[in-house]
């Protein structure tokens, strides 16, 4: 399993934005679910993650919100979203 620089950056962003005090980048498995099971993120985190992505990468999530939240499934899908849609 190789971790790309972008994946690492996203891990740091998740940890800092959501203040995951005891999580290190190594704890986030790129294939493991970010929400509920796995890392244990919740609906408030989803909102904050959306905000952070806009601030940092200029990504505006689609209005078809359900489908764009699928990008939040795990770190790999999140990285793919940033890769394809980043403005900065």
């Amino acid at each position, binding site marked *: 399993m190789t971790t790309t620089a972008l994946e690492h950056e996203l891990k740091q962003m998740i940890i800092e934005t959501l203040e995951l*005090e005891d999580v290190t980048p190594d704890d986030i498995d790129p294939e493991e679910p970010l929400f509920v099971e796995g890392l244990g993120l919740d609906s408030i985190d989803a909102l904050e993650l959306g905000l952070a992505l*806009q601030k940092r990468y200029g990504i505006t999530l689609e209005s*078809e919100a359900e489908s764009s939240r699928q990008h939040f499934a795990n770190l790999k899908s999140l990285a793919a979203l940033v890769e394809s849609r980043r403005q900065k």
Partner: protein
Amino acid sequence: MTFRRLGDRPWRDRPQADAIAWVPPRGDTPSRWLTVGEWHGRIGAWQQWLLETPNESDGWRLFEPDPVEFSAALVAIWERGDRVVLPADNQPKTLSALHGTGVALGPAEPMLGSYGSQSPPDRAPQWDSRPLPTVAVSLYTSGSSGEPQRLDKRFDQLDAELATQASLWPLAGRLVVSQVSHQHIYGLLFSILRPLCENSPFATQPCRYPETLHTWLQHCRTNGHRMILVSASPALSRLPEALDWKPASAALETIYSSGAPLSRSASDLVHERLGTPVHEVYGSSETGGIAWRVQQRESAWTALPGVEVSHGDDNRLWLRSRHLEIPDQWQRQADLIALTDRGFELLGRADRIVKIGGKRISLTAMDRALSRLPGVERAQTLTLQRRDLRLAAIVQLSPSEVPHDHRQHRDTVKRLRRALAAHFETPVLPRYWRFVAPWPTNAQGKLGAEIRQRLFLDLEDRRAPRWLGERVHDSGWRVTLEVPEHCAYVDGHFDGQPVLPGIALVHWAMQQARRLFALTSDFDGLERLRFPQPLLPGDRFEMSLEHRRGDGAESLRLECDSWRGKHVSGRIALVDRQERES
């Protein structure tokens, strides 16, 4: 005003071609109106479904996220003269606690939002002369004891409240879009029952994300619809600035927020971005609506018409309200208020009920659930003002369960959160964990505010260790500490194992000694101090400190041990401040 009471069954005789709901656009499919006729077909379908479903009681437990199906089921149950039981959420423990309150209705997998292939086919509804039930809905909420508390609402209570809202803020045919659950009283009243009683259409889907809201607003603006937004603080305090709200928000008429007060700054931001002030409604499942405010006009709360507010010597709120079960009797509430000449201000609650992300939670219930988990000897939860408001847990584990390093700590937190997830929704689960040993208390034997602050000091100060307790040991003290994962002293190289530099331990030792021994002396060098192996982020360790003075020399004896062995051993030389200056 077009308000009609629920007691008069306003759902029956509306023109079939009227719009009851708005189906938002999705992909290439344009939006459309759902007619009363179509909705009646759903009511008929539910009536048939209920007829065919064996039920020995008169109760139906309804958990249905789809607003159209929910409202159709509600009416179908009422038309039978039966009672609706509304679970607050669909957590397994919530649902099993309500076992025996009737037959469960709603999709087995709520995230799908509908019955899928099982959905009963449309039928013409049957209207007969059966009277409406005495109790319209039974809601369940966490009581102050932590046990779920049943709250019965009669039609006249709901009607009093709906009439008040209709007269204060008429919907006037505008489109009602909701970001909150109708399984709770606020969503039930504002996003389902008000539209039904005031002939205003509601959206057929909840509007969960800001991006959806943005698209719907744009759509409304283009098509000349006016929108009323039923929201709450979690969504309103996280509106992305990157979305261009300005042209779209012209379609927005009013915003409502309830569940938990909105901060002044969040309220100002919403006002600025959406161009509409937020009407906050204050109330609870027990009391119904109590008061309202628009912060840009007045920060104090104004009682709703028909609601009288007073307070006792202890600041407890006293209420006389048409929304209560006994309308003409003053009743004491758990809320603490201060009356001002312009209304009242909220001071918090006298019990341990808090709101996390708009979700109501009894800390007593959380403490109890946590204390019952295997390996937990004692637990206390509290709120931290971090990222709005989040729960933290102070937990004393049985000695064999205490985590000693990062891996064990993560596993323990995961195990405990997973066990709690059967009882509570994810956002209210504790986010910050302190595994104390022994239970930390002050001189009065209490885990007081000062100790609570010390336990979470590392969140404020990235250079501080995670303090977990201390006890007298030999002629000094033994302090239990953890190396925070994101400690500023930890070398954060991308590759390789980050470690805590030894000098950080010396620094921490001096800090603890100043507090424990009321030390006034300064650091004067290291004496035979050895660092056999470094501490790693997440390591738990014992710091033993002894203050020695004699023969004109002053020193601090320091030992740090973890389950992996010794990390520091030796002495720190101290010098009297005045001596040094002379």
